[in-house]
C-alpha cells in the first residue's frame, strides 16, 4: 500500500513575530524553523504503519514551500519515510487553504495512496482546513483530531477526541485521510545514523505551477499583533468596599455571578 504524510515547516512558536512589508503575513527573516508539531504526530504514526506493513508498503513525505522546507523533509526521511516530494513554492504563505489542498490533491490524485496522514492544523495559520479539503477533493473517507490509530485488513480504527475530553471511536475503509492530534503518539527522535542515511533517499522536486489549478477563495487582508490592552483596573479603599466593587465587576463583566 502507498502511504503519504503531508508536513508543513513552521517558525519556532517562541519567536517574536513581526508583520511583513505587505502586512499580510509575518516577516520570515530571523526565524528558526521546525516541523509543525501536529505533523510530527502524523509522521510518527505513518512510520509506525509503514513498519507494521513492512516492505509491501511505501511511505512518501510531502511538503510545500521554499528550499528551507527540505530540512523538515529530511527529518521525516530520517524518522523512517521512504521518499520525499518537495513542491517548490517560495510564496506558499500567500495561498489560502483551498489552494494548498488543491496542490496536494493534484499531486496525490494519480498516485493511488491508500492512506494519507496530516496534522490536525498548522501552528502558524491554524485553519485546520487542508487535511479535510484534500480528503474531499480526493473523495477519501476522513477522520480528524486522532488520538488513537489502528489499521487492520483495510480498515482504520481511529480514536477521536471530542469536546470535554470524551473519546469517540470511528472506523474508516481505505482510501482514507486522517488528521493527527497531540496525544496520538510520542514522535521518535531521528537517530544520527538515520539522519546521515537520509541523504541517500530520493527527494523529488516539483514546481508548484505544475500542480496549482485553483484561485484563492479567501484572502488575508491584514496581519498584526493585538492592540495593546489598557492597564488593568486598580481598586483602592477598605476591604468591605473592595469586595462590593469586585462582586459588581464580576456580575457586570462575566457569567460567574448573576
Amino acid at each position: 500500500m502507498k502511504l503519504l504524510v503531508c508536513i508543513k515547516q513552521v517558525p519556532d512558536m517562541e519567536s517574536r513575530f513581526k508583520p511583513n512589508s505587505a502586512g499580510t503575513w509575518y516577516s520570515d527573516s530571523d526565524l528558526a524553523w521546525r516541523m509543525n508539531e501536529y505533523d510530527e504526530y502524523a509522521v510518527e504514526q505513518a512510520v509506525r504503519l509503514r513498519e507494521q506493513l513492512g516492505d509491501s508498503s511505501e511511505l512518501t513525505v510531502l511538503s510545500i514551500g521554499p528550499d528551507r522546507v527540505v530540512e523538515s523533509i529530511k527529518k521525516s526521511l530520517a524518522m523512517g519515510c521512504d521518499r520525499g516530494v518537495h513542491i517548490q513554492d517560495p510564496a506558499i504563505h500567500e495561498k489560502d487553504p483551498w489552494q494548498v489542498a488543491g496542490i496536494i490533491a493534484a499531486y496525490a490524485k494519480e498516485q493511488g495512496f491508500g492512506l494519507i496522514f496530516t496534522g490536525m492544523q498548522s501552528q502558524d495559520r491554524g485553519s485546520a482546513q487542508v487535511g479535510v479539503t484534500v480528503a474531499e477533493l480526493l473523495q477519501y473517507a476522513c477522520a480528524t483530531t486522532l488520538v488513537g490509530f489502528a489499521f487492520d485488513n483495510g480498515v482504520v480504527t481511529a480514536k477521536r477526541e471530542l469536546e470535554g475530553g470524551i473519546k469517540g471511536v470511528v472506523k474508516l475503509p481505505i482510501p482514507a485521510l486522517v488528521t493527527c492530534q497531540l496525544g496520538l503518539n510520542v514522535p521518535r527522535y531521528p537517530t544520527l545514523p538515520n539522519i546521515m542515511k537520509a541523504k541517500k533517499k530520493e527527494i523529488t522536486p516539483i514546481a508548484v505551477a505544475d500542480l496549482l489549478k485553483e484561485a484563492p477563495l479567501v484572502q488575508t487582508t491584514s496581519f498584526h499583533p493585538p492592540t495593546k490592552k489598557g492597564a488593568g483596573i486598580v481598586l483602592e479603599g477598605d476591604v468591605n468596599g473592595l469586595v462590593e466593587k469586585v462582586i459588581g465587576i464580576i456580575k457586570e463583566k462575566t457569567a460567574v455571578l448573576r
Partner: protein
Amino acid sequence: MHLDLTEEQKLIQDTARDFAGSELEPVAAALDSGNDRTPMLANLKKLAELGFMGLNVKEQYGGAEAGVVAFSVAISEIARACASTAVTLSVNNMVCEVIQAIGNEEQKTKYIPKICSGEYIAGGFGLTETGAGSDPSSMTTQAIKDGDCYVLNGSKIFITSASYAGVFVVWAVTDKEAPKGKGISCFLVEAGTPGLIIGKEEKKMGQHASATNELIFDNCRIPAGAMMGKPNDGFRIAVAELTGGRIGIGSLALGIGLAAMDYATGYSTERVQFGQKISGFQALQWMMADGYTELEAARLLLMNAAWRKENGKSFVKEASMAKLYATESANRACYKAMQMLGGYGYIQDYPIERFTRDARVTSIYEGTSEIQRLIISREILRNFS
C-alpha cells in the same frame, strides 16, 4: 566561504537540542546535588541509541559518520543542559576515535560498536598520573612483557567515567631506558580484568554526575594482543588524539557559557529594580554584549577547528586556540551571568552557580590554558624558524 551548517548538521543540532531540553535539563540540577547518577546513565544509554557516542566514527563500527562539525554542535547543545552528560559524551567519542585511528581490525570490531551502541555506558581514557599531568610523558605506570601477556603496574588519576566504563585506553611505559616520550605504549584494558582496581571517586567542584576516579593496576595481566599501534609509539598517539578531544571540551564550554548568558539575559528582562527592568541599564547591556560577542568568537574558532579536522587539514593550532578561547570566555560568561543575577546568581535555586562550577574545569582538563598557549606559540614559532 560557507558559514552555515548543512541540513544534516542542523538536524543533528536540533535532535541534540530537543533531547537535551526534554530529557537532560529536567534532571541536571538533581544530578548535580544528589548522589544518584542513575538518571544520567539511563540518558547516556538513550543518547548512544540515537548515535551520539560515535559521531565521527565509521558506520561499519556502529558510528554515525556525521563528522566533526556535527560532533561540536551536538556537544554544545548537550552541555547547555547538562555538562556532566556532555563530558561523558566527549570522552566516549574520543575513546572511539582513538581505537578507530590506531586499533587493528579485531580491536575496532570488538570495542567500538559496544561504546557506540551503549552496551558499554562509557569508555575510559587513562593517561594522567599523579606525577604526569601537563607532562604526560613523565608517567611511571609500567607494562612488562611476560610471555604472551603484558603485566601492568602503577596508577592513573582523574579518569572520567571509570566506575561505569566497559573498556579503558591506557598508556604505560614499555621501555624505561628510551628517551622521554619514546618508550610509552598504548593498551586496551577491559573493565573487570583481574588486577584492575577502580579507586576512590574524587569530590569535585562541579560536573558532579560524571565520575572521576583513580585507576590502579596491581599486577594486571592483559594479553599481548591488547596493545594498540606499534610498541613504544603510544605517546605520539596520545598527543594526537588529545587534539581532537580539545574540540569536544571547547564545544562543551561554549554550551555552558551560552546557557549562562541566555538565562541571565532572560532574567534581566523580568527583574525590576529602581522602577525599571534591569536589562534597561547599560551596565548589564555591556555584560550581555561582551559575553555574547566572546562566545560567538569562540563558536567560530571551534567551527574552524572542527571543519579543518573534518577535511583532513592540520588543526593542532586551531584546536588549541578554540579550546583556550572557548573555555576562558565560557568562564567569563558565567561570572558575568552571576553578576547579572546578583545574589540570586549565587544560590542553588538558580542554575548559574552550577554553570559556573561546571565551567571552571574546562580551562584545566584536556590540557590547561597554559598548555594550549604553549602549543599555539610553538606552532606559530615553527613558521618563523
